[in-house]
């Protein structure tokens, strides 16, 4: 049940392409999704499921095959192209690296649907462009060429351009692709802040599930035949995340909120330890394939002690007691004990 009127709503939307022989190639059908004001929505799904097609259709860049897209209550096809451009802005995966194109000029192109035939920027337009540059954290970059800045900075320029376009809805196709980890977090943080502070509805697709789960207000989980939507936590609780990579080995850990590779257990080990040192030692043991249980009658027992900031790692094997300097040495030793000879063929 919807308590808040959505800014964007689709009804039985069918997306895809019309081929040269007038046949339809349906990419995805029966899409019924919505997004509210001030919301950051992440689209998650496997490659090739149709995320880009959906985003391009929502951004009015390609026609839907059937169904409705309602933007602030109006059917998208009834809006003129220029009117739609005042409501929806778009950032594609295609990087813009035009030599001689200045950051300011690229951001100012966001004013396109608002300026006259000559594209003349008035005082008001310039203020908005400057404001957009500031919001994206790009002050001092105005006169730099977009070909000379980093990928993350360029992505921020593209975001600033959507701000200058003054649209209620911003759609971004994989804005975090090609970025390093801090870059990814930075972009999603900016998007999150913008959604919260400016009331814009921001929709983006991503493969970075972790970041999306921590920052998005809503997730559209694009499974092969169904889009499940809700808060990230809703999807965890209803156990729907596991469906994304159903065909792969990955398993979703509902406690950790992340995908893990399944581990074949090679043995069992008793464990006694607390604190950070305990936590990370346990992680290491699980990584090498040991089932970690509370210390009892096991053949091998590990004890972790932390004294005056020094970590002691002790292994009791039968009567033998061995001490280790680091988790690395401990796991190396354990691997040799538990090693199984796996025939190569």
């Amino acid at each position, binding site marked *: 049940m919807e308590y808040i009127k959505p800014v964007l709503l689709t009804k039985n939307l069918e997306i895809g392409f019309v081929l040269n022989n007038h046949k339809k190639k349906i990419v995805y059908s029966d899409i019924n999704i919505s997004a509210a004001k001030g919301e950051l929505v992440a689209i998650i799904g496997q490659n090739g499921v149709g995320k880009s097609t959906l985003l391009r259709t929502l951004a009015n860049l390609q026609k839907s095959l059937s169904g409705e897209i309602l933007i602030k209550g109006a059917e998208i096809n009834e809006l003129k192209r220029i009117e739609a451009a005042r409501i929806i802005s778009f950032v594609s995966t*295609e990087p813009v690296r035009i030599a001689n194109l200045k950051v300011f000029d690229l951001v100012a192109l966001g004013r396109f649907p608002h300026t006259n035939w000559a594209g003349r920027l008035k005082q008001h337009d310039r203020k908005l462009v400057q404001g957009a540059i500031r919001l994206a954290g790009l002050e001092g970059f105005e006169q730099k060429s977009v070909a000379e800045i980093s990928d993350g900075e360029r992505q921020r320029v593209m975001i600033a351009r959507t701000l200058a376009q003054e649209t209620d809805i911003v759609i971004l196709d994989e804005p975090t692709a090609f970025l390093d980890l801090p870059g990814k977090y930075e972009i999603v943080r900016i998007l999150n802040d913008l959604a919260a502070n400016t009331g814009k509805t921001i929709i983006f697709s991503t493969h970075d599930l972790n970041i999306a789960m921590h920052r998005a207000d809503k997730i559209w989980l694009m499974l092969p035949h169904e889009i499940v939507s809700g808060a990230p936590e809703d999807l965890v609780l209803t156990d729907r995340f596991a469906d994304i990579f159903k065909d792969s080995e990955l398993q979703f850990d509902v406690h950790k909120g992340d995908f893990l590779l399944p581990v074949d257990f090679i043995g069992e080990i008793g464990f006694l330890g607390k604190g950070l040192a305990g936590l990370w030692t346990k992680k290491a043991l699980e990584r090498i394939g040991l089932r970690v249980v509370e210390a009892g009658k096991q053949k091998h027992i590990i004890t972790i002690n932390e004294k005056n900031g020094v970590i002691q790692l002790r292994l009791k094997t039968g009567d033998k007691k061995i001490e280790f300097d680091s988790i690395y040495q401990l796991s190396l030793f354990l691997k040799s004990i538990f090693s199984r000879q796996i025939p190569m063929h």
Partner: protein
Amino acid sequence: MTEPKNIQVRLFSRKHLLIFGVLLIALVLLFLLDLFLGSVRIPFSEIVRILLSGEGKEEWVTIIYKFRFPKAITALLAGMALSVSGLQMQTVFRNPLAGPYVLGISAGASLGVAILMLGFSSLIFTSNILNIGNWAIVTAAWIGSGLILFLILMVSMRVRDIMTILILGIMFGSATTAVVSILQYFSHETSLKAFVVWTMGSLGHVSREQLQVLSFSVIVGLGISFASVKLLNALLLGETYAKSLGLNVKASRILIFVSTSILAGSITAFCGPIGFVGIAVPHIARMIFNTADHKILLSGTLVLGGILLLFSDIIAHVPGYDTILPINSVTALVGIPVVVWIIVRNRKYSAFS
């Protein structure tokens, strides 16, 4: 949010205005120098006097007004038109190597004229060949160049690679040249002669009537260019972004192609193919003005185009000698180094996308 201070609402920055000033002075000087050169030596002061008052030695007045002035104006128009058409093509195709000559637009214009003069007229008015009007010639050239532009657009929508499109453009150019040769082979002697005379067209062979048609066409073409500055800026970002900004991409492309065809077609119709101006000048403008904003680039390309062709025409006179080199060879020698520079630099990063 604090109010940003000192926002400048100016069409051109001070630096750009200064560059324009210098370039305009250079343009005027080259124009005068172009009038100065020729087999008959007329003192520089006399040229200025004749230009300003229209009075002077009758023989000199005739030379200036009947020959040198129209030729210099033609050079100016040709330089401007070809350069602007090159800039438009580079932006629309997002290809730094696009230009009316390399992509076969000029060849398309020749084909249009050849079909009119050889194919069409051989069938209809065999005897009256020289009476084909200037407007008919120029229209045929527009249609020919527009056709090739459209073909290249079709291909470039499927093929993204810059070099592939360039090679295809050269193929189109060669194909049209081949068709023209075949037409020549089958045509009547009289029409063939008229056509051969036309192909030898140069800056100096443009008649007064032709110059009128040419000036009118170039002004119309440039008018459309200046009206599409905003569209060109949006198209620079590529089709997706242009669309998302609310641009009608199809209509914009057609408008820009109409202007490109008029500009490149008209010049080819009366001056013959002049290569490498259209491809080189926009890059020189980008380098000098260091901007991608078409408001500045278009004006800069216009002035630099005029400068380059006047300069080439001056070189073509081989100062001190009575011979005149073909203008096409001179522009090739001036333009090719620029093209080579683009290709070499492009290995590092593309100027577009």
